[in-house]
């Protein structure tokens, strides 16, 4: 039995990509969906409260954030050295290391491994990088089944959707929807919206797959250079199943996930689970340092690590943009984001939604496709405040707006720089700066504006789509002040 029969609808088309117009439409649709807004509001309130409860001591949080930021920045400053050290340690441990610059390369490497083993079924632990490269799509196109085993990912795959949250993939689905989905797609299952019963159904179906799968795929939360260790954080045990039971384990990760020492993982792990789901610790922390050794009785016979670039080296080359790579993928920024809470994860149309998605996606996909993303923000600053590794997300959003909207130039820091450049708008802002930058011209302009206020246009582009038109005040502040004296 192939994986496809277990989940009727396979991933048809990549959605890690939306045009600017489609982004506006998706956001509009999402904002006008009261059901979606209620469920995201509830879920985000829940996650925010759980996180807050994990950090009762502000000084401890401050100290842990500074330490975590320091570790990530230290690791990134040494990234090429640490990657080489990681490769050497892993090789010594018997793990095969592969490098891929693009999603297509990464998929080709993994498909090669699958074909060498004549694999029919790959069971997957949760991996956002595998979503980023459209792994399931690539495997299924080549006739290899790829089955998600994280409960949330399994649900999303059954529904033919993409995760709407990086930690809680099926956060947009209600238990009634999931009950319907299970009853429709899993043979012999009757409708039940009892959560325990639904989980037991998932457990039963997926255990059969763990037992027979040829390959297990996982992501990586931290890769330790000194020991050659891949660390995985999870609650369900499916990550352990995928990395332990099948004969081959393939881990795929972005190149930024490496740290130097095992002890560096301790604070990052602590702040990760607390920031993500408000858990003091996850059920499992799985440290993998190699395949089955002679004498050992289980574990995979082969372990592979695929290191993926996909735009990360571009972010790395710029001192400010490099901070993007500090991310440990906790999702706290989306949980606290007023925009994410209102439009949900799917509206963004990118693999990574929310604030983190807005700052990583432009590197992965280029600004041509994503130049509007950094503007999907009120710059309220909540994301930066809760980030466990202190990524200055609002500053990066402003920087990306600048990259997107400045006039195209010869030595851009990013692919697609200037994609959002608009000659007229730029001219307008230049004029505005000229007028407002000099006291004399500003006074003359404001004098004129108050006198010509009746000529203010009633249609003012995007502004009047949802607001009343802007009209200059009848009197200037300076005149009112003068009257008072």
């Amino acid at each position, binding site marked *: 039995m192939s994986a496809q029969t277990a989940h009727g609808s396979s991933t048809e088309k990549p959605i890690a990509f939306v045009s600017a117009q489609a982004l506006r439409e998706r956001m509009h649709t999402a904002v006008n969906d009261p059901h979606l807004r209620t469920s995201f509001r509830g879920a985000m309130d829940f996650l925010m409260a759980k996180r807050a409860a994990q950090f009762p001591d502000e000084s401890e949080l401050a*100290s842990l954030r500074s*330490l975590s930021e*320091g570790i990530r920045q*230290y690791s990134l*400053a040494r*990234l*090429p050295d640490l990657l*080489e050290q990681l490769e050497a340690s892993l090789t010594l*441990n018997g793990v095969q290391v592969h*490098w891929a*610059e693009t999603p297509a390369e990464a998929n080709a490497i993994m498909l090669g491994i699958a074909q060498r083993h004549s694999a029919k079924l790959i069971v997957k632990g949760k991996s956002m990088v595998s979503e980023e490269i459209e792994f399931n799509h690539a495997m299924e196109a080549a006739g290899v089944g790829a089955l998600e085993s994280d*409960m*949330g990912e399994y*649900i999303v795959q059954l529904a033919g959707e993409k995760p709407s949250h990086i930690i*809680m993939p*099926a*956060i947009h689905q*209600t*238990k009634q929807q*999931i009950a319907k989905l299970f009853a429709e797609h899993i043979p012999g299952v009757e409708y039940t919206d009892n*959560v*325990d019963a639904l*989980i037991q159904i998932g*457990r039963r179906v*997926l255990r059969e797959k*763990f*037992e027979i799968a040829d390959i297990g795929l996982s992501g990586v939360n931290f890769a330790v250079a000194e020991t050659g*260790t891949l660390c995985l954080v999870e609650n*369900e*045990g*499916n990550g*352990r*199943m995928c990395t*332990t039971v099948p004969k081959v384990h393939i881990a795929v990760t972005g190149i930024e996930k490496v740290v*130097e020492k*095992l002890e*560096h993982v*301790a*604070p990052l*792990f*602590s702040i990760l689970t607390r920031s993500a*789901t408000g858990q003091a*610790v*996850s*059920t*499992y*922390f*799985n*440290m*993998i*340092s190699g395949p*089955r*050794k002679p*004498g*050992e*009785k*289980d*574990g995979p016979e082969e372990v592979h690590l695929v290191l993926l*670039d996909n735009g990360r080296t571009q972010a790395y*080359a710029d001192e400010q943009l490099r901070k993007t790579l500090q991310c440990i993928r906790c999702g706290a920024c989306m949980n606290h984001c007023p925009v994410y809470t209102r439009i949900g994860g799917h509206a963004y149309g990118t693999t990574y939604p929310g604030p983190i998605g807005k700052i990583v996606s432009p590197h992965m996909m280029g600004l041509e496709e994503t130049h509007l993303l950094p503007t999907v923000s009120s710059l309220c600053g909540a994301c930066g405040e809760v980030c466990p590794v202190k990524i200055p997300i609002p500053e990066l959003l402003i920087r990306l707006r600048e990259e997107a909207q400045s006039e195209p130039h010869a030595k851009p820091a990013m692919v697609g720089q200037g994609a959002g450049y608009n000659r007229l708008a730029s001219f307008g802002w230049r004029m505005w700066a000229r007028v407002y930058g000099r006291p004399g011209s500003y006074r003359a302009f404001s004098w004129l504006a108050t006198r010509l206020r009746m000529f203010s246009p009633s249609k003012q582009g995007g502004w009047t789509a949802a607001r009343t038109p802007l009209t200059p005040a009848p009197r200037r502040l300076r005149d009112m002040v003068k009257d008072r004296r």
Partner: protein
Amino acid sequence: MSARDRILSKLRAGQPAQPLPAPVLDEHFGPRAGTDSPAQRLARFRTGIESFHAEVHITSEAGWPALLARLCADKKVATLLYGADTPAGRRIADAPFAGTTPRAWVGPVEGLKADLFHRIDAGFTQTRGAIAETGTLIVWPSEAEPRTLSLVPPIHFALLDARHIHPTFFDAIRLENWGASLPTNALLISGPSKTADIQQTLAYGAHGPKELVVLVINAEGEPQ
């Protein structure tokens, strides 16, 4: 040039000229190690892991096999899988089981996979120690106690020596110098498997064990 070389050369070109100072972890963790007595550490560990739905029983070096046998009977465990070639394993064969067949793990997993997935009710492992701060067991699978022993059977019995409870994960790594040698698989386990992926509703028994039962010995704490 290979993908590897291209990635590394791009990174080298962008690498900051000055390396950053190595992070200092002791400043953060020093005060957190605290001055808890072994009994206080055990109490913290217990509160933590019980909050994650694990069951904790305080027993003794002499008494744990009998307690294990009784718990197996209570939980209607027909077959208990364990690793025979360990100090604890050697005592299981003589435990007073009633209605439970202890089965020693023999040979590679391929030979008992079907039983492991369908016919074994519980697995027993030793632990390397625990972490007080979070209520976490440290389990290092080995030749004698394979990785799946603590994963596939619906119930996991774990034997913990209370003298090996560390204040934090960091202290365990530091004190036991994990950086120098790690097994092929090392685990931190905090409760039975769980998920909140359906409407944030917590459900236990996701893909791993549905129950985690910890038997604590040497709770009085003094080293032998």
